[in-house]
C-alpha cells in the first residue's frame, strides 16, 4: 500500500515538473506583453514588476498601409470558415465512399489515397503555383488557391482518420436503415453523421488550427497587403519591430493565439475520440 502511494506521489511530482516546462513559455509570453520594452528581458520571471498596457494598445494600431491586426484577424477567418465547412463536407463523402462501398478500381484508389498521405506538400508548391498562376487565382479575393484544394478533400490525413471511424460503426446500422427505406445518402445523413459527430468536430477543429497556423500558403498566394491573414501579419510586425518594440509584437502573437486556444477548449467538451460516441 505504501509503495503505491509513493509511486503516485512520484508521478505527480514528475507530471507537475513537466507541466511547468510546457506552460512556462506561454505564461512568460502573457507576462511579457504587460511589460515595458526596457523591462521585458530583464528577468526570466513571469509577472511584470511595473505592468503597462502599452504593448496591447500599440498592437491594435496599424503599421501604416492597408492592413491592421483586426483586419488580418478577419482575413484569417474569411479563409478558415469556408475551408473548414467545405473540408467537412468533402472529407465525409469521400471517407463514406471508401469505407462502405465497392466500385471498380477501389484497391488502386485506396493505395493512391494512402500514398498521398506521405507525399510532401513542399514538392507541390512550385507546380501548384504555376497552375494557380495560369488559372488567374494568385491573390484571388476569395482565397481560391487556399480553399479549393481542401474543398476537394485534399487533406488526406483527415479522410484516412475518418475512414477508421466509419469502419468502427457496425454495418448492421446501415442495413437497418436500408430496410426502413433510406437510400445511401439518407443513411449517411440521418444515421452515420450523428454517430460520428464527435469525430467530425475533431476533424473541423484540426483543419481550423492547421489553416490558422498556415504560413506558406498565404505567403505564396496572397499578394495584396489588405488581404493578408494573421500569420503573414505577425511576420510583418516582427520584421518591422524587432529590437525595439517586443511587447507590441508579443501582444500581437498573444491575440493571435487566444482564439485558437479558446476554440480548442470549447470543442474539447464535444470531442471524445476514445469512444467516438458509439455503443453496440
Amino acid at each position: 500500500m505504501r509503495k503505491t502511494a509513493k509511486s503516485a506521489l512520484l508521478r505527480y511530482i514528475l507530471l507537475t515538473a513537466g507541466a511547468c516546462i510546457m506552460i512556462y513559455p506561454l505564461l512568460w509570453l502573457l507576462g511579457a506583453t504587460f511589460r515595458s520594452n526596457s523591462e521585458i528581458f530583464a528577468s526570466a520571471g513571469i509577472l511584470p514588476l511595473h505592468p503597462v498596457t502599452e504593448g496591447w494598445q500599440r498592437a491594435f494600431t496599424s503599421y501604416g498601409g492597408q492592413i491592421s491586426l483586426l483586419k488580418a484577424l478577419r482575413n484569417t477567418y474569411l479563409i478558415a470558415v469556408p475551408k473548414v465547412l467545405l473540408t467537412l463536407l468533402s472529407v465525409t463523402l469521400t471517407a463514406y465512399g471508401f469505407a462502405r462501398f465497392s466500385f471498380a478500381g477501389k484497391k488502386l484508389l485506396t493505395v493512391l489515397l494512402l500514398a498521398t498521405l506521405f507525399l510532401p506538400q513542399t514538392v507541390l508548391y512550385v507546380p501548384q503555383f504555376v497552375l494557380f498562376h495560369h488559372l488567374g487565382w494568385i491573390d484571388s479575393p476569395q482565397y481560391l488557391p487556399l480553399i479549393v484544394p481542401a474543398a476537394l478533400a485534399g487533406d488526406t490525413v483527415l479522410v484516412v482518420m475518418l475512414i477508421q471511424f466509419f469502419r468502427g460503426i457496425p454495418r448492421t446500422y446501415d442495413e437497418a436503415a436500408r430496410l426502413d427505406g433510406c437510400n445511401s445518402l439518407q443513411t449517411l445523413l440521418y444515421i452515420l453523421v450523428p454517430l460520428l459527430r464527435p469525430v467530425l468536430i475533431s476533424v473541423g477543429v484540426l483543419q481550423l488550427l492547421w489553416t490558422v497556423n498556415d504560413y506558406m500558403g498565404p505567403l505564396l498566394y496572397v499578394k495584396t497587403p489588405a488581404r493578408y491573414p494573421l500569420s503573414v501579419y505577425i511576420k510583418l510586425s516582427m520584421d518591422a519591430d524587432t529590437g525595439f518594440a517586443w511587447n507590441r509584437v508579443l501582444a500581437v502573437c498573444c491575440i493571435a493565439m487566444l482564439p485558437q486556444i479558446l476554440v480548442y477548449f470549447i470543442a474539447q467538451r464535444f470531442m471524445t475520440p476514445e469512444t467516438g460516441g458509439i455503443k453496440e
Partner: protein
Amino acid sequence: MKQSSANAGFIRRNRHFLYILPWMLGFLIFRAFPMLYSLICGFTDFHLFRGMHKTGLMNYIQIMHDPDVLHSIALTVKFACISVPLRLCTAMLAALLLNRMIRGIRLFRTLYYLPSILGGSVAAAVLWKAMFRDHGTVNAILTALHLPAMTWLADSRAALWVIILLRVWEFGAPMLMFLAALQQIPNDLTDAAKLDGAGAVRCFFRVRLPMISSVVFYNLMLGFCTALQEFNAPFVITGGGPRGATTLFSLLLYRSAFTENQMGYACALAWVLFLLSAAFSAAFLLLRRKLVYDPDEGGAA
C-alpha cells in the same frame, strides 16, 4: 440494346463512385497533374518570366555539384533524425505518465497538449525567437543557474537546436495517439508480466511497446515526412542563418523558386526532396514488416 443494358449495369454497380468523385477530381487536378508537371519541369530551365527550354539532366547535375544543396540535404536529414525521435520519446514519456486515472489527470493532459495547438504557427516561432535572443529569457535562466549563457541564434551549432527544441515542445499529437493506444492494451497482459516478475521498465519494452509498435511506426513515418519539409520555424526564427546553419531544404527550394524564379531548378530540387522522403518511408515500411506486431492487420495507419 444489350450493350446499353450492360452499360447501365456497370453504372449501377459503380454508382457509389460518386461519393469519392470530389476527392478524385482534387487528386487529379491538384496532386497527380502538378507532380507530373514538376517532373517534366525538372528537365527544363523554366523561368516564370523567361519561358521554358529543354535542358536534359542539367538541373540534376547542377544539384549534385552545388555545395549549398548538398549541405542543406545533410542538414535536413540531421534535423529529422534528431527532432523526430526526440519528439516521439518525449511524447511517449508524457503518455506513460498520463496513462493513469488519477485525480487531476485531465488538467495535466490539457496542459501538455496546449503548446501543440499552436502547431507550426508563426506566433510560436516569434515567441521562440524572443526567448532565445542573446539577452533573452533562456539566457536569463541559464545565468540564474550559474550556467554559461549562449548566443543561441548566432551560433551555427546552437541555432539548429533552437528549432529542434521548438518542435519537441509541440509533442501533443503523437502523445494523444500513444495514449489512446496504451489504453487499448488489455490489462491482463501487463498484469501477467508483473506476476512473472517484470519491472515497470521491462514491462514497457517487452509488453507495451511491442503492442503499440504499429502506432509508433506510423508516427515515425509521418514525423519524418513533416520534418523533412520544415519551413516556418527556420524561416521566421533564423531566416536560414547563421551562415546557412539552418537553411533546411524547404528554405532553399523556396528561395530558388520564389525569389530567383528558377522554377525548373526548383522542380528538380522538389523531386530530390520527394525521393529522399520516399526513401525514408520505404526504409520504415521494411523495418515495420520485421518489427511490428499487428493485432488486426491494417493496423493504425
